[in-house]
C-alpha cells in the first residue's frame, strides 16, 4: 500500500492487573491511507481507545507492529517516542485537557515550546492555529472563561499547532452539546479536506462517524 500512513500489523494488547492479563486487542491489522478520515466505533470496552493510543504512540503493543509514517514506533525509546509524538501527532481528548493556569494562547503554544522555533515564529503558529479554529479573538482567555465547544477548539488548535501529519481524536464530541459537536466535526472535516490531515477518530456518535470517510467497528478486541 504505497500511500498508507498507518500500518497496524497483527497487534495484540493485554493489560496486566494484579496477576491477571486482561486482553484488550486481539491480533488486529489495519491500514490507514494518507489523508484518510477513519472513524473507529464500537461498544465500551471494545478496545477503540487502546487502538487509538497505540497509533498515537502513547502506548505500546504486547504483540505485533505499529508503523506510522514509515517509523516502527514500537522500536523507539521513551524519549525518542516523546519527540516523535511532538512532531507527528496531534491528540484531541474528549475532555479537552487544557492546562487551567494557561491562556488559550499559552495552551496552544505548549507543544511549540519543544521545537526550536523563535518566539516570533511560535506566535505566528499559535495565531494561525487559533484563527483556523475561529478563536483568534479569545486567545488571552483562560479555559474557565470559555465554553466546552470553545475549549475543544483550543485543544484542536493545540493539536495542529506543530502541523502534524496525523490527528487522533478520542470522542472529541463526547462532552459537547449538539451544536458545539457539529462545529467540532465540521472543523475536523475542514482540517482533513483543506489541510490534508489524516484523522483517526474514536466515537460512539453515529453522526460523528458520518463525517469519516471510513468507519471500522471494534468488538471485544477484534476489528470487524
Amino acid at each position, binding site marked *: 500500500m504505497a500511500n498508507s500512513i498507518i500500518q497496524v500489523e497483527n497487534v495484540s494488547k493485554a493489560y496486566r492487573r494484579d496477576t491477571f492479563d486482561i486482553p484488550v486487542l486481539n491480533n488486529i491489522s489495519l491500514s490507514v491511507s494518507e489523508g484518510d478520515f477513519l472513524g473507529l466505533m464500537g461498544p465500551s470496552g471494545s478496545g477503540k481507545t487502546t487502538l487509538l*493510543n497505540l497509533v*498515537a504512540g*502513547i*502506548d505500546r503493543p504486547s504483540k505485533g507492529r505499529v508503523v506510522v509514517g514509515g517509523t516502527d514506533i514500537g522500536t523507539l525509546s*521513551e*524519549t525518542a517516542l*516523546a*519527540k516523535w*509524538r*511532538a*512532531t507527528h501527532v496531534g*491528540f484531541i*481528548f474528549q475532555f479537552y*485537557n487544557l*492546562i*487551567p*493556569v*494557561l491562556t488559550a494562547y*499559552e495552551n496552544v*503554544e*505548549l*507543544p511549540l*515550546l*519543544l521545537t526550536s522555533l523563535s518566539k516570533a515564529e511560535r506566535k505566528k503558529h499559535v495565531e494561525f492555529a487559533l484563527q483556523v479554529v475561529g478563536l483568534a479573538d479569545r486567545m488571552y482567555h483562560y479555559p474557565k472563561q470559555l465554553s466546552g465547544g470553545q475549549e475543544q477548539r483550543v485543544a484542536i488548535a*493545540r493539536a495542529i499547532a506543530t502541523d502534524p501529519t496525523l490527528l487522533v481524536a478520542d470522542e472529541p464530541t463526547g462532552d459537547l452539546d449538539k451544536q458545539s459537536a457539529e462545529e467540532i466535526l465540521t472543523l475536523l472535516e475542514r482540517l482533513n479536506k483543506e489541510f490534508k490531515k489524516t484523522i483517526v477518530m474514536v466515537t460512539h456518535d453515529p453522526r460523528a462517524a458520518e463525517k469519516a470517510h471510513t468507519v471500522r467497528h471494534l468488538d471485544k478486541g477484534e476489528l470487524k
Partner: protein
Amino acid sequence: MRIFKLMFKNALRHKLRTSLTILGIAIAVMAFGFLRTVVTAWYAGVEASAANRLVTRNAVSFIFPLPLAYRDKIARIPGVETVSYMNWFQGVYIDKNQFFARFAADVQTALEVYPEFIVPPDQLEAFTKERNACMVGADLAKQYNFKIGDVIPIEGDIYPGKWDFVVRAIYQPRDEKVDGTQMWFHWAYLDERMRQDMPGRAGEVGWYIIRISNPNDGARISEEVDQLFKNSRAETKTESERAFQEGFVQGTNLIIVLLNFMSFVIIGIIMLVLGNTMIMSARERTKEYAVLKTIGFSGSHLTKLIAGESMIISILGGALGLLLTYPIVGMFSLFVPKSWFPIFYIEPITIVLAGTSALVVGVIAALFPIQRAVRTSIVDGLRFVG
C-alpha cells in the same frame, strides 16, 4: 511563554497552599538561622581564640590562683614573646542581674597579647596613669551609658569591699567576633588593696596569657611551662587559648548538641512541609502530566517542571526566612542583656547553611513527585481521577 513561566504558574496555582508552605519554610529557615546563631554565640569565645596564645592556670582548678613569681620564669622560655596575667574579679554592679565580665589585668601586657582590643592612645594614657581607672568595651558603654569620667561602683564578693572604678578608656572591638562587653582595671590596684586588707592573697594571679612567636611551638612551650612548676605548691596546666575556652563551654555541651540537633530537625520539618505540598500538587496534576507527555514532553521536561516549581517555593521560603532572621536576632539582642551573649551576630556561614538547606530541600522534596510523574504511563495518567 517559556517553561519557567509554567513553573511559576504551577507554583502559584493554589495560592493559599503555596503561601502557607512558603511561610512554613520561612519560619523553619528563620528558626534554623536563629538556633545556629545561638550556637555560634555560645562558642564565640572559642572561635575568637588566637593560635599564638596559651593560657596557664592552676592545675587543680581555674579557681585556684598562681603566684606572680611564675611570670618571669615563663617569660624566659624560648619562643615566649609576652606574658600577661589576669584575675576574674566578678563583684556586683547595681544587682546580681547586671552581669558583665570584670577582670583585673596587667593592662600594658594584656593589650599586647590582645591586639583585638583597640584603645585610643589618649584614653590609654589616661587609663594607665590612674590607679583605680578602668576600661570598658564599647558595647558595655552603650548598654549602661558609661562615659569617660563616670564612676562604676562595684561591691566586691571574691575580693570583698567597695570598689570605685573611674572609666578612663572605652575600647573598640576589632571586629564583630571580639567581645565588646568586658571591663578591665589594673591588676596592681587589686594587688595593692589585697596587700592592705588580705595580705595572704597578695601577689596572686588568676591565670597567665602567653603570646608565643610560633603557634607550632605551642605544645612544646606548654610542656616546658608545666615542667617548670612540677612538684611546686601550685602546679600549672598550660593549654592553647582555644582549649582553655572550650573548658568553659564543655559543661553545656549537651545543650549545644541539643540545639544543633534541633536545627537539623528543623531542616527535616521543612523537607516534610515542602515534600507534602509537592506530592499533593503532583498527584493532583497526574492527568496534566500525562497530557504534557502526550503532546511530546519527555521525562526530563517534567523533571525540570516539577523540580523548578519546588525550587521556586523553597527559594521564596528560604529568602523570606533569611530576611526574617535578621530582625528576630536583632530583637533577641535587644531583650537579652548584651553581656549574656557578648558576641551575637549572624555569621555568613549561617546564611550559607540556611540558604543551602532550603535549596537542597527544594531538590529533595521534588524527587518523589518527579519519580511518580515520570514513571506513570500516559495511559494510566489519562485515566487518573484525583
